[in-house]
């Protein structure tokens, strides 16, 4: 019984300490904004929300369309050519390696987009008249996630270039092999 009381007291102390940290953090965030900035958020609340709603919809469309394109490049092009090269006993290691890295980046892109959409939805659900600071912070989090999604897109495009380079090398190797067979 004594032990359980000690545990209870310990848990209470921990809860108080944690809530203090959270409160201090929240206070620190709030103090970073001046009352003028807070008023500006309230003034532009409706406009900002409309812009966010439009962005939410246009980014969803972009995610569907570009995600489908990236997916099709992988399944309808890269994988098919790799398989064809493999079936004909050509060395396709570099092509497969780039395809795998591309696939992994595509998975990261998918999960990062989910995180971005969730943060943006959170921002949209906050009443910016009543909670301007929370709204500002939620938008900042969504912005960071969107930048991450953009980074993923840039990486995917780099893999498209790498596959092109690997393809050029494959063609060169093929031509060398054909020349070697003729001689």
């Amino acid at each position, binding site marked *: 019984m004594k032990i359980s009381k000690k545990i209870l007291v310990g848990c209470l102390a921990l809860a108080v300490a944690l809530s203090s940290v959270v409160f201090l953090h929240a206070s620190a965030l709030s103090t970073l904004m001046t009352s003028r900035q807070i008023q500006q958020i309230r003034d532009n609340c409706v406009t900002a929300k409309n812009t966010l709603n439009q962005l939410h919809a246009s980014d*969803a469309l972009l995610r569907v*369309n570009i995600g*489908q394109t990236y997916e*099709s*490049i992988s399944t309808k092009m890269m994988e098919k050519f790799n398989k064809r090269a493999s079936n004909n006993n050509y060395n396709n290691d570099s092509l497969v390696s780039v395809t795998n890295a591309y696939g992994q980046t595509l998975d990261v892109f998918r*999960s990062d987009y989910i995180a971005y959409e969730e943060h943006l939805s959170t921002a949209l659900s906050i009443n910016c008249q009543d909670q301007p600071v929370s709204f500002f912070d939620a938008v900042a989090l969504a912005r960071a996630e969107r930048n991450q999604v953009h980074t993923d897109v840039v990486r995917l495009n780099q893999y498209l270039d790498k596959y092109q380079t690997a393809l050029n090398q494959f063609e060169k190797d093929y031509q060398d092999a054909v020349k070697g067979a003729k001689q």
Partner: protein
Amino acid sequence: MDEPKVMAIVNEMSNSGKRRFLLFIIMSMIVSSVLVVVSMQLYNSSGAAQLDLSRPGYISVRSQAMIDNSDFGDYSSTGSINQSAITEFKSLYKKQAQKTKAVDAFGGDPLSAKALGLN
């Protein structure tokens, strides 16, 4: 067996049947509620919710979703490898890669405080 006794037994069975039917309805509602919660959880966590343009907020963009991507061609994974097959694939791939890279997806900074008029 006299008539009042028979009536009492019939009534008792009828009440028992009603209770069982009620229990059956309640259990069905509980099971269906659990299944709905699980499926909604899967819908949200799998990323399907983010791709579902039939949601109310996406009405304005729904019609612009790419339905047909037949311009990817139908490159076969079978067949021989020769110069013509490589050239055909390179041409298809280059076209799609250029088209994809031309889109500055998720670029810019529309969520900046300045763009939203928040600073």
